[in-house]
């Protein structure tokens, strides 16, 4: 009956083979989560805020070179390096497998950002300012973070809450695929899948057992909830060789 108490493990599967690097997820995230706008000043200082970023790398030698993209949100690690370093317990793991950032507890020590190997935590160095015509575009379900606190991808927790609440009001269990994140909705090639990894029937848990699946920086043993599917190589042996090497 009480849906919040059910132990879930929200996870995301990102198919890098489908990713075209269009940056749609970045914009969707920025709009959904009231992430402040970045200007040149922020780029120059290396203080860009974007909960989701798309990294580009080249594959192959010129002239047979291919651009590959990998979108990186907060990995929501099960063994998160950011959590034990927080002196005020502002970031912790809840029973839904999410790494939570409690904005009103945060005092801005930035230890968590130093500990994060994926560089997905962002510190508000300035009070966020939007152009006057964009003031009414802010999402009322998400707190506007003020200066001096840390923020990061929340797996669109406001959408999870909304979905869970709706299911509870209608006296039913949440269905797989009912809750979508903003980046998932915006993805033109449907490279992003979101769901409950604890549910063996869900789409994400099936995809996460795919041959192509891997996690970022597995040697750190962070056990992320964001699972990537490798881009498809023309010959399969090359991929298996690479995958075997990455575990060494």
């Amino acid at each position, binding site marked *: 009956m*009480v849906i*919040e*108490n059910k132990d879930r493990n929200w996870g995301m599967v990102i198919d890098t083979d489908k990713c075209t690097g269009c940056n749609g997820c970045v914009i969707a995230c920025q709009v959904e989560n009231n992430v402040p706008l970045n200007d040149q000043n922020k780029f120059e200082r290396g203080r860009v805020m974007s909960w989701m970023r798309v990294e580009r790398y080249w594959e192959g030698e010129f002239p047979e070179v291919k651009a590959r993209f990998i979108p990186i949100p907060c990995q929501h690690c099960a063994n998160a390096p950011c959590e034990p370093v927080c002196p005020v317990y502002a970031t*912790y793991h*809840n*029973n839904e497998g*999410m790494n*939570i950032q*409690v*904005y*009103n*507890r945060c005092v801005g020590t930035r230890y968590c950002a130093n500990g994060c190997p994926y560089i997905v935590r962002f510190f508000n160095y300035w009070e966020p300012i939007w152009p006057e015509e964009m003031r009414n575009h802010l999402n*009322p*379900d*998400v*707190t*506007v973070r003020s200066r001096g606190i840390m923020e990061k991808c*929340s797996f669109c*927790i*406001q959408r999870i*809450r909304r979905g869970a*609440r709706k299911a*509870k*009001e209608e006296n039913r269990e949440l269905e797989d695929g009912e809750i979508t994140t903003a980046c998932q909705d915006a993805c033109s090639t449907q490279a992003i899948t979101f769901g409950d990894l604890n549910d063996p029937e869900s789409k994400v848990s099936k995809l996460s057992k795919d041959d192509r699946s891997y996690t970022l920086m597995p040697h750190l043993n962070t056990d992320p909830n964001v699972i990537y599917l490798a881009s498809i190589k023309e010959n399969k042996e090359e991929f298996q060789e690479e995958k075997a090497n990455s575990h060494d």
Partner: protein
Amino acid sequence: MKVIVPIIGLGGLSTIAILAILFAGLINAWLGQPLPVLGFEQTFDQPINFPHTKHAGPVTEGGLGMDCTYCHRTVENSSSAHVPAVELCASCHRAIGSENSEELKKLRESAGIYSENNQVIVDPKKASPINWKRVHRLPDHVRFVHSAHINYLTNNPGAIKNIPEHLNIYGKENVLSSEVCSTCHGDVANMEQVHQVEPLKMGQCVNCHRENGGPTDCAACHH
């Protein structure tokens, strides 16, 4: 200073200074509490002195006994209980109410209603919203959802607090949405000017959540 210092000594002076700082801190913390905690009623002078007593008050006491959800329409299925648009007020008050009432004149003005040649004309171009002052305000980092709480309380009337005298909901299994509001808002139907009754601080939220098995995860409200 030459006289005082030898008498009470430097130790005494520093003690007084420390006590003064502590006292200032105490006063600051005291005033930082919301006024209802201290037993004062903080009322606001609204742009139109809307009488909840006349609209929502019990029929036996001269009110109309209107349901709260008639005006605060989105409260059952949305996170916020919206203040109604002027048009909703005007839907009744273009006909009902004294012509000479000062408050109704203000309402008709902001709804764009005027009479010409014994005809009532509604001109939406002349309408303008009323700048109501907000009475119940939660901090910006809290996400309170009315619909979830109303959904729970209507099915679990045991958790309702501050039940007004004129309501008879004891022993019922299901109650109306408008009968649960008093838990946080008090008996608004009998308030001349709406004021905050409960402190609406996090301690109160968490206590109620613990008593009724609500989620106590930080991310349930703070996100």
